[in-house]
């Protein structure tokens, strides 16, 4: 089921909300079970055939977690339990996500014709990573025992299940245990509706609105210079509003239940370096990769060269996490290389004099954005060859069309650029403070004018009017 669909907005969400708060008047556990069941229903509507896999994954990881937290195992037993858990998770992920890719490469190398037909379960990357983090923390002794309903809800919680953010048990389970969140808080519901409306508008009006322009670069056999740039920029903005819209909607929906989700986006295209870009883009994935891959690999503790190697490995795997194709591997490798260059630059170049800080930051932002756009070309293209064709066109200013369609596209891209660089992001607009569990304080204090409410209602209306029957999120199949 999609957040940007009429059945979700008009039926599923109101029903689950009503049931949650109704049960909340009677018990502290029943709403948790209700929400978990609702989440499984949400998942089943989108892909019922994978529900068993999701439930098995929960049972398996909860069982391993139990061994690590409750059972009195010795160090080697704990290591074995962790190894079993992580290997099991990665094995399932590998089979479902990478078997086709592996077979494709084996076929190319050895001329064989192996063709496994395995469908990719929706959200598998997200719930697998979420649970690996849980197991690692349990092994490190950082997890208290959790009840199964709370654990199941933590994994299946529908606002995040399909496309993130990647949740952390330490952040979520205590919130599920709180009694207060089971009683409707009109302020949180109001803020949740507004944040959801902003996200819905970003997705249905902005991301879906610019999507047709992407074809200029990625569906043309030989795009011109301007078509390739406009198509690549259109995709750059489509992805931004698509993913950012989803993240906002997830936060907004969750807030209606009284639960604060982590921020996943912080105006990433305003970053002045690649390092900063990754602190602003898909923030929960960056944190996961840092805490559970980069640092265990040795991080920056083993010298500069190994640091760069670790960065490259982390980003390569991060790329592969996004999709089983060489285009994603190259995308990850590019970002790994960008990060290495960025760190080397920081280490080698002395501090910039005060007068030059601003021009330096502007140049950094432009360069970062261009580097990100180039990498997105690989992310979007159906093959490496196709990506190179688009990049080749982007580097050949001798072939310019600039006809009616291209000028219209240019106007649209300019409007989107203005929104991205000049507009405030949702959390700033709404005063969303995940760590402090605060939101919309200005609204609560009456400092926001009624105009804000009416603007929000217009955004919600256009978000709903923009709903189309065929508009999936880009991150759905990762």
């Amino acid at each position, binding site marked *: 089921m999609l957040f940007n669909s009429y059945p979700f907005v008009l039926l599923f969400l109101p029903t689950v909300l009503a049931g949650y708060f109704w049960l909340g008047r009677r018990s502290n556990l029943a709403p948790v079970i209700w929400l978990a069941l609702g989440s499984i229903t949400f998942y089943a509507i989108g892909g019922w055939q994978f529900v068993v896999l999701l439930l098995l994954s929960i049972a398996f990881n909860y069982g391993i977690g139990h061994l690590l937290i409750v059972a009195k195992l010795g160090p080697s037993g704990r290591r074995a339990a962790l190894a079993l858990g992580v290997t099991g998770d990665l094995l399932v992920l590998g089979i479902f996500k990478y078997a086709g890719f592996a077979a494709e490469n084996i076929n190319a190398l050895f001329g064989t014709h192996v063709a496994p037909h395995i469908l990719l379960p929706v959200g598998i990357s997200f719930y697998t990573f979420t649970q690996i983090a849980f197991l690692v923390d349990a092994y490190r002794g950082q997890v208290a025992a959790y009840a199964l309903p709370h654990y199941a809800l933590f994994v299946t919680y529908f606002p995040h299940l399909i496309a993130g953010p990647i949740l952390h048990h330490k952040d979520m389970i205590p919130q599920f245990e709180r009694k207060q969140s089971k009683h409707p808080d009109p302020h949180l519901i*109001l803020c949740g509706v507004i944040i959801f*409306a902003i996200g819905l508008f970003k997705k249905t009006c902005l991301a879906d609105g610019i999507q047709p322009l992407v074809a200029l670069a990625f569906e043309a*056999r030989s795009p011109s210079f301007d078509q390739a740039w406009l198509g690549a920029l259109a995709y750059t903005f489509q992805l931004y509003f698509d993913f950012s819209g989803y993240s906002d909607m997830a936060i907004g929906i969750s807030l209606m239940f009284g639960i604060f989700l982590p921020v996943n986006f912080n105006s990433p295209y305003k970053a002045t370096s690649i390092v900063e870009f990754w602190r602003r883009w898909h923030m929960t994935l960056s944190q996961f990769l840092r805490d559970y891959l980069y640092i265990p690999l040795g991080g920056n503790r083993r010298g500069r060269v190994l640091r760069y190697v670790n960065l490259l490995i982390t980003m390569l795997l991060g790329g592969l996490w996004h999709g089983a194709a060489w285009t994603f591997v190259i995308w990850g490798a590019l970002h790994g290389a960008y990060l290495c260059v960025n760190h080397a630059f920081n280490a080698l170049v002395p501090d910039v004099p005060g007068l030059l800080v601003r021009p330096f930051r502007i140049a950094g932002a432009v360069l970062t954005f261009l580097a990100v756009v180039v990498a997105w070309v690989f992310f979007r293209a159906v093959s490496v060859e196709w990506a190179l064709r688009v990049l080749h066109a982007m580097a050949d200013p001798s072939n310019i069309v600039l006809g009616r369609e291209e000028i219209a596209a240019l*106007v649209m891209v300019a409007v989107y650029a203005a929104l991205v660089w000049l507009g405030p992001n949702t959390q700033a607009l709404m005063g969303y403070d995940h760590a402090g569990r605060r939101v919309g304080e200005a609204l609560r204090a009456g400092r926001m004018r*009624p105009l804000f409410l009416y603007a929000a209602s217009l955004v919600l209306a256009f978000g709903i*009017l923009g709903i189309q*029957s065929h508009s999936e999120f880009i991150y759905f199949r990762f």
Partner: protein
Amino acid sequence: MRATYTHLKRLLLASIACVLGAALLTYAIDPLQLFRPSRLAAFYSDDTRVQNAGLIRSQSFDTAFMGTSLAIHFRQSDIDRALAVHSLKLAMTGSNSRQQAFVLERAIDRGARRVIWEMDDFIFVDAADIESDPYLSVDLYRATAKGIASYLFSAAMAKESLFALLRSVPPLREPLTRAAPYLPVKFALADVDDIYALPRDFDVAREYNATKTLASFAYITAPSRRRFLGEGYDLEAMVRHFEHDAVGLIARHPDVTFDVYFPPYSILQFVAMRDASPETLKIVTDLTARIAQRLTLLPNVRLHDFRAIKQVTHDLDNYGDVIHHSPVVDTKVLKWLAIGEYRVDPKAPLKSLEELKSQVEAYRVPQ
């Protein structure tokens, strides 16, 4: 707390009011002309899969013109002049036979007595059933409650309606009409004749020439891309779709005359298959043989085959790639249709196909 509930109620009610207001605006302006011909100056969109639904309802016509990207640049006025008809161009780039037959059926229901149908072999490849086709809203064409609702409750249409409203304000009319084709609005064309037509000052020689055609040939026959030549080609499925979509439609409307034509691809289209995917060429020739034999038996069909007209198909300057011909050839197509030249003789339905086969066999690609 009560104040917050009031805010929430106010927000939701205001949203409902906005939604209804937008729907009302779209109904009043009706950019697609689905309910009535435009009262303001009419504007049209290049998005023909949507635009056709309104054109069929708002335009008067006696002839429907259908096809793929091979027929997309024809101008209605040229068709009318050459064939002495009152036409409606409904060609949809990249369309399949399910979509074409569905749209044609609507046009026939609204009064078309003649259909001119540019027929490619690849329109019969397997595709989504028309009832579940994500690219063509059958409900919009049928004007069902769902179709009307999806039209009225649409942010995109509300935006178009608002722009149309602004464009109707006298001081804004002229500048906005001139700017519309360059703005991100869909209903930007002031003349129905301009829907997917090339500008009148279009540089034909720059876009259609042998260099481009040969480059396209080299591209599609490169070893890494050869497999795409035969993608979706399955004779059995294609024959089934031909029977269902084309023959089914024609048989249901015996009072309508169908002028079906095979467009003049460059010879390189077939040579590419000959050299890089001979099994695909066999499917194409078998399929078109079947089509020719079947259609020439139907009393209300006139079949025209332009694929073996050597002076056109061998002159690579007529093409922008291996299949798409220039507007100069569009004019010729209309002339051939008007005088019935190259009409397939029902007594020898495979004659032109045999001629094409010999041409393909004999052709040597310029080096």
